[in-house]
């Protein structure tokens, strides 16, 4: 291939930019031509400019469990990941369908439980889920919307189709990277933007704000963002979103509950709070209802919530719908509530609670990826093909000790996209996390966070495990 791509290898993975023969796909043509004509010093300069811009904005995240300088700059790749309008239309349809069905599922699980009575899903798998909140039984939430903000991880299989890898329905993060990286890219590639017709994503904050407001009771709409505080890994994002929406960024200690009403302490006295966009996990929101050792939450919040005096977004207990074992039932959930086939499929998933499936997987661990059902962020998983026999033995023991806690999936090759690595353009594996908002209606800003496994050949895209991100462009037509 020509100059900047001379080292570019196309393998079995679906390549986002090139067809198998090495010709660029139509929606990548503009970028391809631009890169052919761009001297490599120019790319270097742009990369430096972009890095500096991220550095100056203080776009960082925290890696837990490391003592030395825990705050790191989020690595960002220079080249955008481009999605054609037709591909996006499918994704949009699929995600809308999925969030609609999952909301109906949550409303059902915490009320009539029809889906269990009809034996579509075994009740056992619901009640043994770590994130099932029995306290939520019978609690009505505004508009029956449990999930207002979702970040769904999609990957692309070698045949080019998108599938859902996991649903993040509790407190998904990363949207601030999506927004800031777009801002930086606009400074760096203005001409390319003009030529390509990239659909805007800047309206995300307004869309999030309208979503939250649509959940507020009539005539009262004080909305706040509840953060665990400055030491949380996503604090930057919390501050960013609060500022973008013009709402107060509060910590648990800023809120008090009196007479089942929630107030924030201000210099003008107590001010009533109506909607809390909470970025604190269920477990920690109220020490009286959940974990007693939590100092991040607000005592009495759950009672105020149950009394209908305050709205939490997302609702409590949504984790039951993104449990990785329950995930395997999502296609059935979609058919059950909507009577439709899923637009975007699931990844084949083996339940370790099922004896036959368990035995099959345990006998072939080197072929599978094993995940703990309630974990995210790339923690608590085994990647079979890249594991040692000791690690496999350890996971086998863990699976047998607690089968409900694990699922297995075949090792999937994520699609690859061109990245600017040390002066050359090379393919790296990527996924895609679009952000889905659900209030009065479903809103998905065209784009998302494309996460990149920066190490050559690696399939792990999580920022805590050496992943980075790139801007995601959805084209107009």
């Amino acid at each position, binding site marked *: 291939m020509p100059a900047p791509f001379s080292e570019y290898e196309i393998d079995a993975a679906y390549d986002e930019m090139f067809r198998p023969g090495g010709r660029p796909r139509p929606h990548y043509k503009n970028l391809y031509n631009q890169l052919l004509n761009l001297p490599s010093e120019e790319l270097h300069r742009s990369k430096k400019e972009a890095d500096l811009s991220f550095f100056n904005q*203080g776009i960082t995240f925290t890696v837990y469990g490391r003592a030395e300088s825990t705050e790191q700059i989020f690595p960002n790749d220079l080249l955008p990941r481009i999605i054609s309008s037709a591909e996006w239309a499918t994704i949009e349809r699929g995600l809308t369908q999925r969030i609609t069905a999952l909301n109906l599922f949550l409303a059902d699980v915490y009320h009539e439980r029809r889906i269990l009575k009809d034996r579509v899903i075994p009740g056992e798998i619901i009640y043994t889920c770590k994130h099932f909140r029995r306290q939520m039984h019978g609690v009505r939430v505004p508009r029956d919307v449990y999930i207002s903000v979702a970040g769904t991880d999609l990957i692309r299989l070698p045949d080019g189709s998108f599938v859902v890898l996991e649903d993040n329905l509790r407190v998904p993060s990363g949207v601030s990277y999506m927004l800031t990286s777009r801002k930086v890219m606009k400074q760096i590639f203005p001409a390319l933007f003009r030529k390509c017709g990239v659909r805007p994503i800047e309206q995300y904050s307004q869309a999030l704000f309208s979503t939250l407001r649509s959940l507020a009771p009539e005539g009262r709409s004080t909305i706040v963002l509840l953060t665990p505080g*400055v030491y949380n890994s996503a604090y930057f994002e919390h*501050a960013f979103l*609060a*500022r973008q929406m013009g709402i*107060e*960024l*509060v*910590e648990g*200690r*800023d809120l*008090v509950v*009196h007479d089942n009403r929630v*107030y*924030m*302490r*201000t*210099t*003008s*006295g*107590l001010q009533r709070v109506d909607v809390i966009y909470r970025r604190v996990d269920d477990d920690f929101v109220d020490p009286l209802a959940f974990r007693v050792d939590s100092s991040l939450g607000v005592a009495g919040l759950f009672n105020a919530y149950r009394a209908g005096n305050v709205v939490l977004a997302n609702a409590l207990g949504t984790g039951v719908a993104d449990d990785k074992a329950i995930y395997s039932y999502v296609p059935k959930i979609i058919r059950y509530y909507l009577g439709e086939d899923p637009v975007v499929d699931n990844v084949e998933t083996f339940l370790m609670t099922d004896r036959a499936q368990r035995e099959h997987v345990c006998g072939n661990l080197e072929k599978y990826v094993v995940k703990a059902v309630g974990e995210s962020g790339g923690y608590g998983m085994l990647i079979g093909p890249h594991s040692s026999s000791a690690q496999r033995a350890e996971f086998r023991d863990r699976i047998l000790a607690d089968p409900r806690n694990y699922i297995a999936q075949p090792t999937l090759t994520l699609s690859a996209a061109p990245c600017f690595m040390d002066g050359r353009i090379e393919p790296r594996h990527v996924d895609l996390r679009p952000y889905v908002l659900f209030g009065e209606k479903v809103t998905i800003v065209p784009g998302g966070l494309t996460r990149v496994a920066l190490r050559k050949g690696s399939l792990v895209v999580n920022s805590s495990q050496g992943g980075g991100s790139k801007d995601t462009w959805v084209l107009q037509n």
Partner: protein
Amino acid sequence: MLSRVADSLYWMSRYFERADHCARVLEANYNLMLNPSKASTEERWHRIMASLGIAATAGGIDPQMAMIKLTSDPGEESSIASCIAESRENAGQVREQISSEMWEHLNRLYHYVTRANSRLETDSDPLRLLVAVREGSYQFRGVTAATMSHGEGWQFIQLGKYMERSCALPVLLDAYFSTAGEADDLDWVGLLASCAAFESYCKVYTADLKPDSMAEFLVLNPEFPYSVRYAVERMNEAIAAISKTSFTHETRRIERIAGRLRAFLAYAQITEIMTRGLHRYLKNVIEQCKSLHAAVHEVYIDYPIQSALEA
């Protein structure tokens, strides 16, 4: 504005002022101690400690060690390094409320001071550090005034700064005037330099260093930034501005305490104060500042829920 945010801004500002004050006092004395004097080095260090409100330690003071301790020892809570660290810690809690320029300046000063700890080897190193802190503090103040919106948050910053000054100046003055009998002209120059007041004083009273005039200048002058009265006037302004933006009727209690303190300074005469005892007068000022601080805390920051609900 959230109470927690107001509290953090207030303390960010107080600690910063405390670091700045400490640096000014040390710089003035560092120069002074190069001159021979009747008093021993140790006695002079005792006065420095007293003028910073640090309880005297039993036993002797090693001058070099004392200097390092007060500038850059993170274990010494009154040291410049500790105060800057506390100020930064508070700023970090409300980073989205202050301007990014403010954070940058404070952060830079923090790194400078904390890294200096291991480098204070040669004789002139402490002085270099003190000068850097002084200049850093001028910059931080300038950046704060220029880049932050002068709303409620800014008023809490003002309040913190002048509250700290109103408390620190009486302590400093008391330390000097309680040993006034043994003081020579150079000691008095040291006092004025500790308040960045030498030139301004001379413009009003000429270079004639009379204790009464100096007390009058540093306590009652309405125009000089490092006089007690000036600081109290600015506190009153900040309190009035905060009252305007707040809706609690409790603010009148604060205004009363602040107003009384202002009158206590505005209508005082130096002859009267000196006859009755400067020490008593200064102690009274500090007591009033303390109750003002407590009132601000009770009304704006840590009020009982019940009282707020009735309001």
